[in-house]
C-alpha cells in the first residue's frame, strides 16, 4: 500500500453525525451571544472615548498649574490681566468696584487678592 493510501486509511473511520435541530439551536445561541458581545464591546469603547474626552476637557479647564506647598497642592486663583483685550474691561470693573464699595479698604483688599495692582498703583501715584 502506498503512503497516500495509508494516510487516507487513517481517516476512513465512520463518523457520527450531529442532530441538525440541536445544532441550529446552539448556532443561534452562539450567534446572539457573539452579537451581544460585539455590541457590548462597541458601547464600552464609546463610553471610554466619552470619559477620556470629558476627562481631558475637564483637566485642561481645571489645571491652572498646581503649586506644591507644605506637602499640599494649591491652585492659583490669579487671573491673567495682561491681555490687552481684557485689560480695559477689568479696569472699568475695578473702578466700578471702587465706586460702589462703601469700605474702600475692603475693595483694595479684594483687588489685591486678585493680584490686580494697577488701580492700587494708580491711587499711589495720584496721592
Amino acid at each position, binding site marked *: 500500500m502506498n*503512503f*497516500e493510501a495509508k*494516510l*487516507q486509511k*487513517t*481517516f476512513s*473511520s465512520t*463518523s*457520527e*453525525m*450531529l442532530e*441538525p435541530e440541536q*445544532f*441550529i439551536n*446552539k*448556532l443561534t445561541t*452562539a*450567534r446572539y451571544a*457573539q452579537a451581544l458581545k460585539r455590541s457590548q464591546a462597541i458601547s464600552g469603547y464609546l463610553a471610554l472615548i466619552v470619559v477620556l474626552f470629558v476627562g481631558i476637557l475637564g483637566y485642561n479647564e481645571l489645571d491652572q498649574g498646581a503649586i506644591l506647598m507644605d506637602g499640599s497642592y494649591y491652585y492659583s486663583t490669579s487671573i491673567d490681566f495682561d491681555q490687552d483685550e481684557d485689560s480695559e474691561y477689568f479696569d472699568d470693573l475695578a473702578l466700578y468696584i471702587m465706586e460702589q464699595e462703601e469700605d474702600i479698604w475692603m475693595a483694595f483688599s479684594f483687588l489685591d487678592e486678585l493680584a490686580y495692582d494697577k488701580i492700587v498703583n494708580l491711587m499711589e501715584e495720584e496721592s
Partner: protein
Amino acid sequence: MKTDRELIQEFQTGSDAAFNELVRRYLDLVYRFFQKITPDKMEAEDLAQTVFIKLFKALKKFRFESEFNTYLYRVNVNTANSYFKRNKWRNMLHLDQAPDTGYVETSQEKQWRKEEVWAAVGRLPKKQRLVVMMRISQALPFKDIGNILDMTEGSAKVNYHHGIKRVKLLLGNNK
C-alpha cells in the same frame, strides 16, 4: 426543493429560515470535514459552528461569483488552517511526545496516528498544508483542489508532491 442559490437569495432578503435550511443541508459535510481533522468531537462541532457563523455574516454579501459548494470548502479550509496555526505548538508537542506504538491499543493507536498525521501536516508551509489537507482528508481530485484553493491543477499537484514528501519525512523520523 429549493436550490442553494434560491436559499441564499431568500436569506439575503432577511429569512433566517432559509439559512437554517442551508445548515441542515451542509451540516454533515462540514462536520465530517472537521472530524477528519480533529479526534475531539466537541472541537469538531465548535469548528463546524465557526464555519456557519462565518457563513451567516458572509452570505449576506455573497455575489454568486463561485459555486456555494466551492465557497463552503474555502471557508472550511480557512477555518482548518486557523485551527492548525492555533494548535501548532500543541501539535508539535504531540509529535515530540509520541508514545511507542507497541504499548497502545489498536483503536487508540488509530486515533493517535490521526493526530500524528495532522501534527506533521500542521508543520508544512501554508499552500502545501492546504493541498495535503484537502487531498488526504477529502480525497478530492487535484482539479477540484485547485479550484477551491484558487490555483492551477499543476500547482496543486506540485504542492502536494512536496508536502507529502515532507509529511513522510516527519512521520518517518518520528518512529
